[in-house]
């Protein structure tokens, strides 16, 4: 008998239980899809003419779909041996990402809200003697 536990661990990570062509196909789809999504975000910021809030929403959608794409095609979410454990880890991950993203937006907006705008700063400096 071999040291089965290590092989099992490797299986989970690379999905060796799938036929090879199917795995390769998945990786190619994931890779090309990620490239398409990344470049469309880049092209949008360079050449897309639209107002800022719309752009931000589109960029966020593109980023999120890339996130899901990589989870499904690279990390094979949904194809694992012990779904319960993976589900737990996935929930934890979503929670941490949410905390970090929402927290950062909250903090940075709060900081920005308390910064002087440039025109206000010029006005303030002009109002002070000797500046």
């Amino acid at each position, binding site marked *: *008998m*071999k*040291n089965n*536990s*290590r092989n*099992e*661990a*490797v299986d*989970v*990570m690379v999905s060796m239980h799938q036929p090879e062509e199917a795995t390769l196909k998945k990786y190619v789809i994931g890779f090309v899809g990620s490239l398409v999504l990344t470049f469309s975000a880049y092209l949008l910021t360079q050449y897309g003419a639209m107002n800022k809030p719309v752009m931000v929403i589109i960029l966020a959608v593109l980023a999120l779909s890339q996130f899901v794409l990589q989870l499904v095609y690279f990390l094979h979410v949904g194809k694992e041996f012990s779904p319960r*454990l993976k589900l737990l880890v996935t929930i*934890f*991950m979503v*929670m*941490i990402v949410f*905390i*970090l993203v929402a*927290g*950062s937006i*909250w*903090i*940075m907006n*709060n*900081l920005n*809200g*308390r*910064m002087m705008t440039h025109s206000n700063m010029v006005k303030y400096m002009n109002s002070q003697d000797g500046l």
Partner: protein
Amino acid sequence: MMHIFNLMASFWLGRLSLKALPPNPIQWFGASLIILVPGMIAVLLTVTKRWKWLYKEWITTQDPKKIGVMYILVAIGMLLRGGADVALIKTQQALSVGASHGILSASHFQQIVTAHGTIMIFFVAMGLMFGIINLIVPLQIGSRDVAFPFLNATSFWLFFFGMVLVNASLVLGDFAATGWLAYPPLSELRYSPTVGVDYWIWSLQIAGVGSLLAAINFIVTILKMRVKGMNFMKMPMFVWSVLGSMLLVAFAFPILTATLTLLALDRNLGMHFFTSGAGGNMMMYVNLIWAWGHPEVYILILPAFGVFSEVVATYSKKRLFGYTSMVWAIAAIVLLSFIVWLHHFFTMGAGSDVNAFFGIMTMIIAIPTGVKLFNWLFTMYRGKIRLDSPMLWFIGFVVIFTIGGMAGVLMAVPPIDFQLHNSLFLVAHFHMMIVGGVVFADFAAITYWFPKIFGFKLNETLGRWVFWLWLVGFLMSFIPLYILGFMGATRRLDHYSASLGWQQLFIVSGIGAALIGAGVGVQLLQFAYSIYKRKDNRDKTGDPWDGRSLEWSLPSPVPFYNFARLPEVSSRDAFWEAKKSRLKDRRKYEDIEIPKNTPLAFMIAALAFIFAFTVVWHIWWLAVIALLSIITLIIVRSMDEQTDYILKASEVEKLDSLYLKGAKL
């Protein structure tokens, strides 16, 4: 003609020239030490004809026990380097008063402080932690190996070469003078035009990727490779704490990698993520680096908690009090450590709602930590306590960690933090947490598990000397810093006015640091003496401390295949229960699959070093070659389908009987 020569030189050598050599005597001394020490090791290896041994036994090894030993050796080496930095810092602070400007220039002093912080966190604390994890986790979960042995070796060598890169800055060029987290705008090209910050970025990138890979490896190892019968609630507490810590690494280190990459893009490609012009925002850097930085603190301290959980239970001869509450405390810490990062920059200017939220979260995270402390104390209550040196480290930890922790809760109150931010009070606080918490635990762990790995015990008398020198020196060194912090002394202070009356306290603190230095000296003596007297201290039973978890069921030193026959577990403290029940061993020997040695892990990391070094110096042609070679080697490795060999069951049986007779193989 000269022009063409310069062009050629800048193509082939980038920014590298003779000007990169150290400019003053103190730096020359440091540089020659950095060259002399490896040089002496090389001469020693040549004289004793051990190069082949080094290659076969260590460089190509995939055995987590050997990798663990190498982690700890590197960390001890870096402890000496970081300690030498302390000697310079403390001397400067004791002397540089009023008219005197001490022994260091201001910019050199800042480089030393930065190097001290970077080295102590990334290459001492992380190194000791990963070393102990490598040594003990597979043994405690009843496994013969980690999930991905090759990845494990790669992690170590990346860590190693990150360390080499930091030290290379002593010989060629300079190091960052920005503080250990290199905030922009100071760390941007405009204000730090030399290679210093680049050295900092790339050594952390290499070591950081190594840590991330190691974390993935140990998460999978703990989740998938536990021995039959060991469900989650039967795992030793050290394994739980490592699982928590590694989850934090896996989620936090990508933030570090991304942030450093953005800073590198700013510096090398003229981008503007963290500049004040062109739409950049330096406050975003502070936000991101602490979103990694705060979990990092818990990455270090969780395994330390795990070590003390093992030590206290063993030396009190009692099962750990409140196992379930310990597990939940770890889970709570893992989650909460991601919700407190703003307390590192209360003073950056966020509104009172933001500051209040993070202040309260910070106070809440003290609760699970307090739960753990009480659990250890209740474990000791009515136990048969033996005050051996690991237990002394624990008691020292309780005192120092509680003082430092209360200082931390104090600073969680934003208005108080406004007074204490960036003062020596803060410096005293986090040294009490990291040294009193992490380093004390690592020393306890080294003493506790030393016989398991090497087959003989460390000298206990000298161990006690080490502890008392460290404890007294540590308190003497850092209590004055609390007082100085209240008096307004800031961190990274290289000069102050005599009228402030701070000099006496700085001198007391310096004497304390010297006592710690003496402690480290005795520690090295302890290793040397114990190795010299190893025949007298041999651990013949494999269970010198009357231990509780599976590693003590193995002979010392542990054979390379760990378990000749895999155990089965039906309760917590599996070995303790087995000792009580004295059941006969009916398990069979079986074939064991063992990874073959390979130099590829070392080569990949060495190429990563070449890549990083050439990027620092802008030698782009070599950087491209190194990067392509790394990718090639990874492909070569993944094509190799025969990475293991089989050790036959009959051979295992033969080896096992030899080991049980106490043979040293």
